[in-house]
């Protein structure tokens, strides 16, 4: 089992979601994050123009069986791409164990995506 953590543009979220659905991945969590990095945004407040370095992105956390790993990552890489600086990152972790609370099943069987 692997956990995929992806940081993507908020504007690309719907595209990534559709791509994941198409790949059969229908179970994941996400949240909005703020970070620092290379890209900056011009901000104007009452006529004062300045560069804001707070970057707003969305993070997805997806746990999949090993066999689903490649297609999931590809779905994200292709759907979240624009080619401009700031498209995001994908990280992959090993998952030691998974439990489903309702049935107390464990291992890959406890995952939603078969």
């Amino acid at each position, binding site marked *: 089992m692997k956990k995929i953590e992806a940081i993507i543009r908020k504007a690309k979220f719907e595209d990534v979601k559709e791509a994941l659905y198409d790949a059969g991945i229908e179970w994941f969590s996400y949240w909005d994050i703020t970070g620092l990095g290379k890209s900056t945004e011009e901000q104007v*407040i*009452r*006529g004062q123009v300045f560069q804001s370095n707070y970057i707003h992105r969305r993070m997805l956390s997806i746990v999949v069986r090993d066999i689903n790993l490649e297609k999931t990552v590809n779905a994200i890489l292709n759907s979240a791409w624009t080619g401009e600086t700031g498209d995001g990152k994908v990280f992959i972790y090993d998952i030691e164990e998974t439990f489903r609370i309702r049935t107390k099943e464990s291992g890959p069987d406890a995952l939603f995506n078969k």
Partner: protein
Amino acid sequence: MKKYILFIAAFLALTISNISAQTKTTGIPVIDSGDTAWMIVATAFVLLMSIPGLALFYGGLVRRKNVLNIFMQVFITVAVISVEWVILGYSNAFGSNSIEWLKPYIGGFDWAFLNNIRISDLSPYFISHSQLAADGSKIGTIPHIVFIMFQGMFAVITPALIIGAFAERINFKGFLVFTILWSIFIYNPVAHWVWSSDGWLLNLGVLDFAGGIVVHVNAGVAAIVTAIMLGKRRDYKGHAIPAHNITYVVMGAGLLWVGWFGFNAGSGLAADGLAANAMMVTHIGGAVAAITWVLMDWIIDKRPTVIGISTGAIAGLAAVTPAAGFVGVSGAIIIGIVVSVICFFMVAYAKPKFGYDDSLDAFGVHGIGGFIGSILTGVLASPFIQSAYSGAIYGNFHQLWIQLLAVSVTILYSGIGTYLMFKLTDKLVGVRVSDKHEAAGLDETQHGETAYTNFD
């Protein structure tokens, strides 16, 4: 040049109608129920400007860790200054003084705790509606108590405006002590000079219909003095810190705009044509300034911003305040354009250049707005509105000098007075929060509460 002035004068004359003062001559003085009903409503409108109007406007502009502190400061100002007003404020500001030489400068204590004021008394103050009292003197048509309440709301909102200057870094105890001292020693005397029948500036002929000098210049100068004395916020980097909730800012600006109808149209102390004119020019002044600001945003910085349109509206409303009872619609249009352009450049360029941290532009918007409006009242005041008053454009340059004198005196008095009061407050209880508390946010450290929690 002369041709231009004549042309503008003709333009002003075309768009306005004559509103003349009326004095009823019937026997026993009576309360006019129409005037009184309107003034009670107007008083409630002015309260609406402070809470929640100003609280939302300022609260939205600060960071999320300080929003409750702003709400609390505005709320407690409403409560504390209202009490101060009935204890001694009203008497000091509008009362007479038994010491003869002090009369033009400060009222006495005859009306302290509203002593000697009965519910059947009529307001000794009036603008266009008056009647003859039993002793042959002129008096107003609304109960004295309504006038006291109405003026009390002005006494409340003036120190509340200063909050924008020292937001996000002032210690709550220091804020409270300063606000009380400032109201007693700065607001009450200045209100006495400009509005009380004994006031020396009033008797020189100064025009300040609803508080351009007493409220906006006065609070604006106090704002810049306190902002400089308190120093910059720890996170201030030479430009505005992003607002945490712009929807609050818009709601606040909207409520301020609504409340301003009570503020300005109520300042005629009657439900008549003068109030109608004040309402009209207030609305148009705010609207023109909002449009002007947003156009500058759009042209100079590429996009029309929501904070921009809200700020422009407030600047216009502040500027039209002293002029509301003296200019027509065309005057309001000129005031709206001029104030928006000047405030925009003050906030966008002058503030970063000088490097002072007026957190929410209390000086740049209210102070400068009131200043421009008070001066322009001396230029644009039209005899077609109140026949007794005219400005430089109608040949009465004397009015412009009086306006300049009154504004300068107020700037000096408020500037020096604020410096002394703030210094005294710092000695008594301290004014600045510790760096650690400032970083953690004033909601948590001053009040032990958090505005936005994740609890269900």
